């Protein structure tokens, strides 16, 4: 095809006369037959994946429903979520529900008391994971979730949503690796700041410096 002559191109005209009736049909059937025969021995024609036994490899980027990441062993103490409710506000279909845990004075304890995700509404857009500033919410790759229970089976509570950091590392090695490095750097920085403060408190013995509040940070 000459690409330089003009900016437009004409389609091939339909065959003016059908030379031998049925020859076009036969040509098409040759294509079908070729495909059928090749599907027995050519690798690129053998497309079927025998699903429950074998699976299509899922890309590490694949996202289905969100989960909450926690560090260490205890899903409650190690939960990264600080109940800032950014994801709740940003979620386009509004399928996240958070109740902040508070002490008796009404001060936030920076962890969720209730964290529900209604996966019967979730549209897998990944905006919650994108906006989370605490590396807490990520998108899971799990997709075999069919159930009979439309109400309780699809309302995921905190216990179902919490998954360890190792799970994240296995699911998305690159992303989780970067997050781990960054978080470790942050923790180190915090420790350094705290150590400096303590050193200052040691030298400044007259004034009692208040202990900085630390959350359950990982070792």
């Amino acid at each position, binding site marked *: 095809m000459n690409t330089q002559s003009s900016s437009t191109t004409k389609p091939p005209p339909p065959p003016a006369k059908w030379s031998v009736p049925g020859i076009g049909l036969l040509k098409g059937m040759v294509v079908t037959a070729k495909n059928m025969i090749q599907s027995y021995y050519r690798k690129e024609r053998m*497309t079927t994946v025998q699903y429950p036994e074998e699976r299509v490899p899922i890309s590490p980027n694949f996202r289905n*429903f969100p989960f909450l990441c926690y560090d260490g062993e205890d899903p409650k103490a190690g939960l990264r979520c600080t109940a800032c409710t950014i994801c709740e506000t940003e979620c386009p*279909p509004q399928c996240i529900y958070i*109740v902040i845990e508070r002490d008796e004075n009404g001060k936030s304890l920076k962890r969720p*008391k209730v964290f529900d995700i209604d996966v*019967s509404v979730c549209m897998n857009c990944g905006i919650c994971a994108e906006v989370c500033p605490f590396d807490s919410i990520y998108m899971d790759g799990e*997709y075999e*979730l*069919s159930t*009979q229970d439309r109400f309780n089976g699809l309302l995921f509570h905190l216990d179902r949503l919490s998954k360890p950091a190792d799970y994240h590392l296995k699911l998305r090695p690159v992303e989780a690796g970067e997050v781990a490095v960054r978080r470790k750097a942050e923790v180190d920085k915090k420790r350094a700041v705290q150590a400096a403060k303590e050193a200052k408190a040691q030298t400044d013995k007259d004034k009692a410096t208040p202990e900085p509040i630390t959350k359950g940070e990982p070792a």
Partner: protein
Amino acid sequence: MGIDFNLVADLKSHGVHVTSFESLVNWGRASSLWPLQFGLACCAIEMIAATMARYDMARFGAEVFRPSPRQADLMIVAGTVTKKMAPQVVRLYNQMAEPKYVIAMGACAISGGPFKDGYNVLKGIDRFIPVDVVIPGCPPRPEALLDGLLTLRAIIAREKLLGKHRARHADPNGTAAFPVPEFGAHDLEPTANREIWNPPAIVRESEGGTQA
């Protein structure tokens, strides 16, 4: 009923298959589900993808998509059910012959999904017809649909044909047709079939303590 499973396994090794009549019927039904060729929205494209070469739903005996509800066993509600479409969906369900099953595929069919706040969107097809299996996702992957189909097959395999807990279609008093909603001035009338739509009461744990 006192089946000796060891004996059954022993006979099987000799090429003799022994089963109950119920299991045979359920096996037949589960292995040849003919879905209604009926796509509503985005999920329908993934449903088509599930029938195509890569996922090949034919391996489960469910590739025969029938355009007529009279010839179909399974309705895959794949996509957003709008209020304008809901009466037609119910009518199609009523026209299907027993035994019939419904899979709600994707967020919209289950609950209205991302579009649930729309004025013309029905918040879940289970307001009007009974749903057997729900598949969350927007849209679910074709594998997820196959997984849903396997779940449904497991449900069918457990069905009782006789007795108190028999399946709806085996019960002569069971309902096969559900009332079709009418178009009203502001909304469908009625907005849901109260006989089958019973959402649980939501008990909210609020910040100050348990509160309804």
